């Protein structure tokens, strides 16, 4: 077991980062993960990950299961507390402090980050006792204290955007997996976050329903939403991503534009992974 490094005096940079096609000139990175380490017990899952995401970029994280890609996403919104490193989202910077006493201020900062980095889950996690509309306005009304009618107006806009206006008053159990995931996307969008985190959003779906969800996500990417997507959908990554990162054993092996990482990977491990993925398909 290596000892954890002390925080760097100089901010370390993501060597693969470069502002995306839609990034306004001169814009600062909106998400900065710096030297993230994560242990589960003695299992060293993330080994010093640094990632910078610029506004209006779409980043895809690929890698085999157990490589740490989902854990990295969960560290970004503090579903998992990193063992070391710092997370910065929209100028809110929180350093990992696994041994520190939890203060109210610390919890408030984490909630701030979560509001700005909305997560879309593999298993949708809609609230089953609420209708589609109630699911979508719950966050704005209860967390952001948006007036109810204003929240409903925003919610309807995004429910319409994911093409589910006719399901507005249904309960989730009456929806297909693809519809549920689109509601979950609308729920995240209605919080008006700075960045969207997608944790294998199509992995729990029937293959015939994957397309409708990827379609919504690709639209968002092209409209300039900032997104970090953990996925196995290479076609989506190729079409929508500004950068693709290949992660293995908790480190980035390589990163860059999809045409480089997916079509001409320089590292042997990336080549093996992509070859296996293609054979399987």
């Amino acid at each position, binding site marked *: 077991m290596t000892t954890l490094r002390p925080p760097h005096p100089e901010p370390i940079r993501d060597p693969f980062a470069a502002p995306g096609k839609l990034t306004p000139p001169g814009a600062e990175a909106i998400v900065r993960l710096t030297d993230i380490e994560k242990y589960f017990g003695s299992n060293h899952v993330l080994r010093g990950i640094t990632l910078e995401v610029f506004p209006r970029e779409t980043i895809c994280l690929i890698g085999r299961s157990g490589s740490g890609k989902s854990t990295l996403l969960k560290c970004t*919104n503090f*579903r998992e507390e990193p063992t070391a490193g710092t997370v910065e989202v929209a100028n809110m910077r929180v350093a990992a402090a696994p041994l520190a006493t939890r203060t109210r201020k610390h*919890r408030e900062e984490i*909630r*701030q980050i*979560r*509001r700005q980095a*909305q*997560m879309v*889950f593999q*298993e949708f*996690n*809609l*609230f*089953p*006792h609420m209708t589609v509309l109630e699911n979508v306005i*719950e*966050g704005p009304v*209860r*967390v*952001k204290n948006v007036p109810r009618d204003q929240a409903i107006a925003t919610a309807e806009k995004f429910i319409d955007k994911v093409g589910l206006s006719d399901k507005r008053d249904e*309960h*989730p*159990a*009456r929806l297909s997996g693809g519809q549920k995931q689109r509601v979950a996307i609308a*729920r995240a969008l209605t*919080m008006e976050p700075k960045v969207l985190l997608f944790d294998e959003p199509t992995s729990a779906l029937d293959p015939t329903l994957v397309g409708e969800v990827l379609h919504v996500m690709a639209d968002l990417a092209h409209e300039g939403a900032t997104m970090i997507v953990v996925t196995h959908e290479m076609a989506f990554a190729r079409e929508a991503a500004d950068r693709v990162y290949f992660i293995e054993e908790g480190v980035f092996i390589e990163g860059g534009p999809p045409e480089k990482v997916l079509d001409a990977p320089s590292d042997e491990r990336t080549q093996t992974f992509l070859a296996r993925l293609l054979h399987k398909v």
Partner: protein
Amino acid sequence: MDPIVDQIARRRARGRLRFRATVFGTWVVLIGLLVGGLWVAGKIDVGFLSQWQAFILGGVPLTLVISASSIFFAIILAVLGALGRLSSNAVVYGIASFYVSIVRGTPLIVQILFIYLALPQIWPGFAGIPAIVLGIFALSFNYGAYMTEIFRAGIQAIPRGQIDAAHALGMTDRLTMRRVILPQAIRIVTPAIGNEFIAMIKDSALISIISVQELLWRAQTVGSTKFRTLETLLLAALVYWALTLAFSVLQDRLEKRMAESDRRI
């Protein structure tokens, strides 16, 4: 469709109907043997019963009021107890687990007697509190502890993803509990609360020992003063039985309705 499909279905339905009819018939015969047998043997004084039945049955509303209000307070205690049992605060957890432990580790009858007889020795003011209030307190206190475990299990049955989703929206733990976990947990525990209510109807008979004039107290008092406990206790038993049967049917209906609305959800 092949007519055989219909024939099979009809035959199955007939079989099910015959089974239920036979079960019903068996019950009627058994009850007839029990009550009718005693009657025929001249062991039941019908005249005595008809003279006193109004007084005895007059205890039924009190039994129901006691049961309903005790369940109500028990639910409040149980929600608090469950939150305590799930708390990360050691003192809060300690209080909740202590409560559950003393209640579950001692007989209900001892708790009732302790509250009614022993507490006034500590503070004489307790003697001024009506027995029915103390009885409801004892039953609530006892059932609250058992139902604490029901609520705890109900809360823990909510999938982790629900908490993740609530936290991801930026909700505090308190808001997550109130808006996401408890509403779903309450649906889960409703059938169990129904069972507890039915058990409560029967256990409410125990507070006859502190002279609350509910169903059993009336049956017992009339019976023993007139040396006719066979009639009065038999009547009381039949009434308890009828009450629990009626509430089981109600509970069944409620559960079916909930299952349907779950399907609609």
